């Protein structure tokens, strides 16, 4: 087990290094940030000064090494636009995205798995058909479109909930959180719903197809033959068996939901990381883009690692296989 963990960590570090390189090189391909930072009528002198100050005159590999060195110290440079350290900027936006994503993914799982299991257990029941129709809808309709419809319905037409923004926050551990205030929830509800619908459909499908296949398996037949009740079969055998793919998807989806938050945050003007990256791409705020991508890559690799470990903990066969 220990060997498995350490080999996975080394692998993760290697991937991280490759990612940082790709991100750095990739971002270099975008325009010339100096043009954005300086007024069009800036003199050659000022230009040269700025280029030297930001290190744009150095060879790319040297810029990369300097970048990597600073990265290791947690120094990701300063935003060209906001003129504050990127780290500080990102940390100030992270809680908003994190709470939005967490609420979306957790509620999608808690609601989606039981619904999916029911639909898989009773594939021909009317309620199952309704659940599946709903999931096709949630799966097919692009997130941005659902966002628009939610705004049109609940904000414009009914006027029940605000169309965007974050509302009142409470400060805990020096970070601002919306879910601790009633007003915050009002602002949180629509974007969280928007973000959750796709994941909900995904969880429903996953739980349904898993349940459907397992219900036909000999494991279930044997459990029934032992007199275990249908509820017991679902609760102890089926749920335990579909848990492995669900935990995997939960982890992976948590990462992709962070990415999807870009869309939701743009529509609902939610001041999180996603909105920040859209703005920084628009304004060619290179350090912010690099930092965002490195951060997302880091989150991803960490999540993958955790999922692998959870996988091993849940499926004894894997634990054995990888150990051997």
């Amino acid at each position, binding site marked *: 087990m220990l060997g498995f963990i350490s080999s996975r960590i080394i692998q993760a570090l290697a991937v991280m290094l490759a990612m940082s390189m790709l991100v750095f090189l990739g971002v270099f391909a975008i325009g010339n940030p100096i043009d954005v930072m300086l007024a069009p009528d800036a003199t050659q002198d000022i230009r040269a000064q700025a280029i030297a100050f930001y290190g744009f005159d150095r060879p790319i590999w040297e810029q990369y090494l300097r970048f990597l060195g600073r990265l290791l110290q947690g120094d990701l440079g300063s935003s060209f636009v906001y003129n504050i350290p990127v780290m500080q900027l990102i940390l100030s936006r992270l809680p908003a995205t994190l709470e939005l994503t967490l609420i979306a993914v957790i509620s999608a799982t808690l609601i989606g798995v039981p619904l999916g299991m029911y639909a898989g257990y009773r594939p021909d029941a009317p309620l199952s058909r309704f659940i599946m129709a709903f999931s096709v809808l949630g799966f097919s309709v692009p997130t941005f479109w659902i966002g628009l419809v939610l705004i049109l319905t609940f904000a414009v037409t009914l006027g029940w909930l605000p169309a965007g923004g974050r509302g009142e926050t409470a400060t805990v551990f020096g970070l601002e959180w919306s879910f601790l205030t009633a007003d915050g929830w009002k602002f949180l509800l629509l974007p969280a719903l928007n973000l959750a619908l796709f994941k909900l459909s995904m969880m429903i499908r996953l739980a349904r197809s898993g349940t459907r296949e397992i219900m036909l398996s*000999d494991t279930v037949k044997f459990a029934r033959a032992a007199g275990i009740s249908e509820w*017991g079969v679902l609760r102890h055998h089926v749920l335990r068996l579909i848990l492995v793919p669900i935990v995997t998807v939960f982890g992976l989806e948590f990462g992709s939901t962070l990415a999807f938050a870009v869309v939701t945050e743009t529509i609902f003007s939610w001041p999180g990381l996603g909105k920040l990256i859209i703005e920084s791409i628009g304004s060619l705020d290179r350090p912010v883009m690099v930092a965002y991508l490195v951060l997302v890559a880091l989150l991803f690799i960490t999540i993958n690692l955790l999922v692998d470990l959870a996988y091993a903990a849940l499926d004894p066969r894997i634990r054995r296989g990888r150990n051997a």
Partner: protein
Amino acid sequence: MSAPLLEVRDLVTHFFTRAGVVKAVDGISFTLNPGEVMGLVGESGSGKSITGFSLLGLVDAPGRIVAGSVKLNGQELVGLPQAELRRIRGKTMSMVFQDPAMTLNPVLTVRRQMRLALAAHERMSDAAATARCVDVLSRVGIPDAARRLDSYPHEFSGGMRQRVALAIALLHRPAVIVADEPTTALDVSIQAQILAEMKDLVRDSGTALIWISHDLATVSSLAGKMAVMYAGRMVETGPTGTVLSAPRHHYTRGLLDSLPSQAEPGQDLRQIPGSTPSLLGLPPGCPFASRCPAGTATCAQVSPEITWEGGRGFRCHHPLVEALA
């Protein structure tokens, strides 16, 4: 004489598929007394497994028992609500399946799976449950049972896994066990071991056993009586010794002739010509007619009723004469 432990009369199970009605089990009758072993023989697709599932009320949709009766200790099981069937399953009548790798839940420990099976019928303390599990596991021949209780199925060998499955089926000391090809997936040497242990178990506990198999050898070594199934119907039944030594149905004869032991070295094995008919839209007559050496126009038109002679029965218009066989 008191009523038999298990009495099955004219059991019919159909599958209502899109393509039509599949008559998977079409008129099976037999009785079983405590401690008796009956072999149920047939090719794959002959309906022997579905017969087993029908007894426990475990036929999956789109299948359904459409006629007949299954009486266990005098209680009618056909038509009983699932909740009551559940109380019988695993307690009075239990079942083991062909492939233990598929039946045991791979992500639960043996202890957990046995606990779930115990809890289905009895509330008991952890200590008592553990004691019962260890006891049953040792009875089916698992060494060091107390320690193996926390292992996962994949940590056992194939034979040991089947013993675990058997132990789960035996937890509540059922009166009847339906064993659906339980040794087919195992090595021959392990098969022999399990077979010997099954014999002992049946003798010691008085459990009746229905041994479903396509292997005449295991049936002859284990079962006191047997039934041969073909295309969902029971074509011949009787004491194992007489059925095998003097079959009355041409299909049973064909099965025996195709055994390797019947052939001279270097000689080709004899086969029954043709292949099993599709259970979808069977012809009106005897399903074996087209492959039967004695098949006539009557056979193709009229389905033979079962003829009873002493302890045995057969469904054939032109049965083999006993002396000839």
